[in-house]
């Protein structure tokens, strides 16, 4: 399997590290954020532990640690391993805001 890094070009799988689903977003309302919402415990349990087990296209975080050390959002079919899109993860590269 090869991944076309948007910064480096096409590279072998060994240069990348897999993190997992890119969909979970950190929920608001935790004590550290200033005041705990009643739903925070459940939201955080879901965010930390619960993952969808998709058969099909999934957007995942991959790290190009063996190259330019950028986080990437890779859309991959979990059934065929076909990679359909690779883009920099939000915040990758200092010129991008966010």
């Amino acid at each position, binding site marked *: 399997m090869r991944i076309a890094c948007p910064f480096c070009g096409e*590279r072998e799988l060994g240069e990348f590290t897999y993190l997992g689903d890119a969909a979970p977003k950190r929920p608001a309302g935790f004590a550290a954020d200033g005041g705990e919402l009643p739903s925070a415990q459940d939201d955080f349990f879901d965010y930390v532990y619960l993952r969808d087990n998709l058969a099909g296209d999934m957007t995942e975080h991959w790290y190009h640690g063996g190259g330019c050390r950028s986080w990437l959002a890779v859309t991959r079919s979990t059934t065929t391993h076909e990679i359909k899109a690779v883009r920099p993860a939000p915040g990758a590269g200092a010129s991008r805001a966010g």
Partner: protein
Amino acid sequence: MADYLWSVGSPLRKAFVPGRQGVLSGEAGVFLAELTGFSLVQVMARRGRWADTAKAAKTHYGVAAPDRPTALFGKQATLVWSGPDQFFALTSADGLADPLAPLRGVFAGIASLSDQSGGRCLIRISGARVRDALAKVSSLDFHDTAFPVGTAAATSIDHTNVGLWRAADAADGSPVYHLLVFTSFADSLWHTILDAAAEYGVDASRAGVFA
């Protein structure tokens, strides 16, 4: 408090053996050299300040900052892409002067600087069979059309991160590559390349960085 005497040593002091190695007959197919006498600074643009950083680099070094995997050769410095919005500035140095001192004002507020002079080992690999040797240890395509002079890459060789770029061809037309590797991995990488190149005959030496 006891004073500690820092002594400067080659990161290849265990692996480096000068002279001919591997196959001894015929002309050496691969030339390996540890390059010394350089200072290396990593410049990383702060968020949203790449354009300012590139402009400051152009003014200071007289050569554009690389915004994609390339190496740009100026009179005083070689600027090598090392990732998005960051690059290495390689300059010649023969003393222990702080390489950051002249740069602090240039990049103040727009980029973070990190002195890597003692943190990396710089290896030059060239010769008529250099591509055959590199093909065994790297997954990159080093063909002229895919990797012309001035191309750079951040990649891994033997599970070791390296910064790699192609410099101007040698006098006989064979390609010349430069490799930057963390000092603590330099011995290991040197052995790996030496093993890969042994069948072509290797000539190992030390040289000044811009010699």
